[in-house]
């Protein structure tokens, strides 16, 4: 029997176009799956069942499935604003916030007749790598319920067939890291490729929005739908958007891949290192050239990222003041006290810590000593990438140095698990994570990094790898926690 919840976008689109299935059937199948499984995974903070069903039957009635995403349900990370659908950022501060507008990416998806199925969990205001700082609950990894799903539950939702695909955000690696931990595909676009208007900001110079999907083709389809210049986001770029799906047909030749040695050192698990070297072998078998290279300054990336992210986050957090929207304390003495108490009650510990640290870094004392230094080191890291890309078309690394860690195991804020993903945000480059093996019964992610605005290139390389391997087809053996 055809299991509708397991479909990819392109397969669902094919069946919808041929009228072999309806959008309502697809939506119902997913809602049933969510009802059965989400008690275990806890991927969704809010479900949009009624509206999704209503919209699906409207779309069925119109019967127009020319758009690739038409009638297909999507899960959206809960820091992306959805009109009339609660958007919490997994914070008590926004527990009851219902946005009066759609983020640009949501507007674009709705124009393609996509259905918003629900909103997925994250660390509070996206500050973390495990969803453990969510105000609501910790989400689980479907491959092993004792493990974290990554910094967002969108990938868990896709991996567990609780959504056909999802939209996620990536400031230090959430899209790629959670895709790697859950054995699915996640793409972080170049800074400026996709509008962030309507994304609750975390770190303005690094935030991006990207798709999480079951395969590379789906990733290209979603990127086609959400890319492009947006007047509401001054950081969005007017660089031409190619047809990413069409570009998958390109036959790759003379590809040169660099493997930065800094991401295969002692901090990286042996099985993961082997999986990456095996991936390089797969590429060589396809006729690509793979060579070791070096990015000497990435060793500073974790610190640099934490400094910049905290400073930028602290100014983002200023908008939560208990006046226009969000939590307001009940008891306060004056306006300043209202701000202080509302934030004191509305923010969790990690958000408070970063807000205060960020304020310190923007203050005179911390600024010269740390923040300016971090922005200078960012230049060096960016230059390392530029230099590598003079010689190589792509770089490959593990997405994470270990497989998904156990819930409760992350020791401090500077999580070494982000070591391979944060340099890419610092340099603003595009990168994709695709499944490339297994260790301890959990998926391993291969990160492919490209030149700025070469999403087409990384999708092509990822697609070539996917066609020559079957890691993405391996099914989850459900294991009870």
């Amino acid at each position: 029997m055809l299991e509708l919840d397991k479909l990819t976008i392109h397969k669902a689109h094919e069946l919808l176009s041929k009228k072999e299935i309806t959008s309502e059937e697809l939506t119902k199948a997913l809602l049933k799956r969510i009802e059965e499984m989400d008690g275990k995974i806890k991927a969704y903070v809010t479900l949009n069942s009624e509206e999704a069903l209503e919209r699906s039957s409207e779309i069925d009635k119109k019967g127009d499935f020319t758009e690739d995403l038409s009638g297909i349900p999507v899960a959206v990370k809960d820091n992306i604003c959805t009109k009339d659908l609660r958007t919490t950022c997994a914070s008590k501060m926004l527990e009851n916030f219902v946005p009066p507008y759609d983020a640009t990416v949501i507007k674009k998806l709705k124009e393609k007749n996509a259905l918003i199925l629900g909103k997925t969990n994250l660390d509070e205001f996206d500050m973390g790598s495990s969803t453990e700082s969510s105000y609501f609950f910790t989400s689980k990894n479907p491959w092993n319920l004792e493990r974290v799903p990554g910094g967002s539950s969108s990938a868990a939702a896709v991996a567990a067939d609780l959504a056909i695909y999802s939209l996620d955000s990536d400031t230090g690696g959430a899209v790629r890291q959670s895709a790697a931990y859950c054995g699915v595909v996640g793409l972080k676009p170049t800074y400026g490729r996709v509008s962030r208007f309507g994304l609750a900001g975390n770190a303005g110079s690094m935030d991006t929005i990207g798709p999480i999907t079951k395969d590379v083709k789906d990733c290209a389809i979603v990127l086609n739908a959400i890319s492009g210049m947006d007047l509401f986001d001054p950081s969005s770029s007017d660089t031409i958007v190619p047809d990413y799906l069409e570009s998958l047909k390109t036959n790759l030749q003379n590809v040169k891949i660099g493997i930065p040695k800094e991401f295969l050192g002692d901090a990286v698990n042996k099985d993961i290192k082997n999986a990456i070297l095996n991936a390089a072998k797969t590429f060589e078998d396809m006729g690509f050239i793979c060579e070791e290279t070096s990015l000497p300054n990435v060793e500073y990336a974790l610190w640099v990222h934490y400094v910049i992210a905290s400073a930028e986050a602290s100014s983002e957090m200023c908008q939560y003041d208990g006046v226009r929207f969000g939590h307001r304390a009940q008891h306060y003495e004056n306006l300043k006290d209202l701000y202080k108490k509302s934030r004191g009650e509305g923010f969790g510990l990690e958000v408070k810590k970063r807000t205060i640290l960020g304020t310190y870094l923007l203050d005179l004392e911390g600024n010269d000593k740390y923040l300016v230094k971090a922005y200078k080191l960012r230049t060096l890291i960016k230059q390392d990438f530029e230099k590598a890309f003079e010689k190589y078309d792509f770089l490959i690394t593990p997405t994470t140095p270990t497989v998904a860690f156990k819930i409760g195991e992350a020791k401090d804020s500077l999580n070494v698990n982000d070591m391979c993903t944060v340099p890419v945000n610092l340099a603003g480059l595009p990168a994709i994570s695709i499944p490339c093996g297994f260790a301890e019964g959990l998926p391993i992610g291969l990160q492919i990094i490209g030149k700025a605005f070469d999403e087409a290139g990384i999708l092509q390389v990822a697609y070539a790898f996917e066609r020559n391997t079957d890691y993405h087809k391996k099914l989850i053996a459900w294991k009870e926690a």
Partner: protein
Amino acid sequence: MDKGTLYRVADIAHVHLESREIEQISKDMDFLLEYFDKLSQVDTESVLPTVCPINDKNVLRDDEVWDSLPIDEVLKNAPDKHGRFFRVPRIIEE
């Protein structure tokens, strides 16, 4: 970070902290700042800072009036409102 500095910065950030949070944050800050101190050992004398990674240019657009959200919609999430306004505690003393 000593508690005096932490109090001062939390006050600038307008964040109220409970005493148990002060203990925890102060401890974490020490760890982080000690960590950050390693950054200062790297020579960046002649390096320019990078604030924006890509597309580092000023974006201009015509000064046109666009539709904005209806007032009802804007006030929908306000914790306290009065007519067409957000309501806040008195700011100017009598």
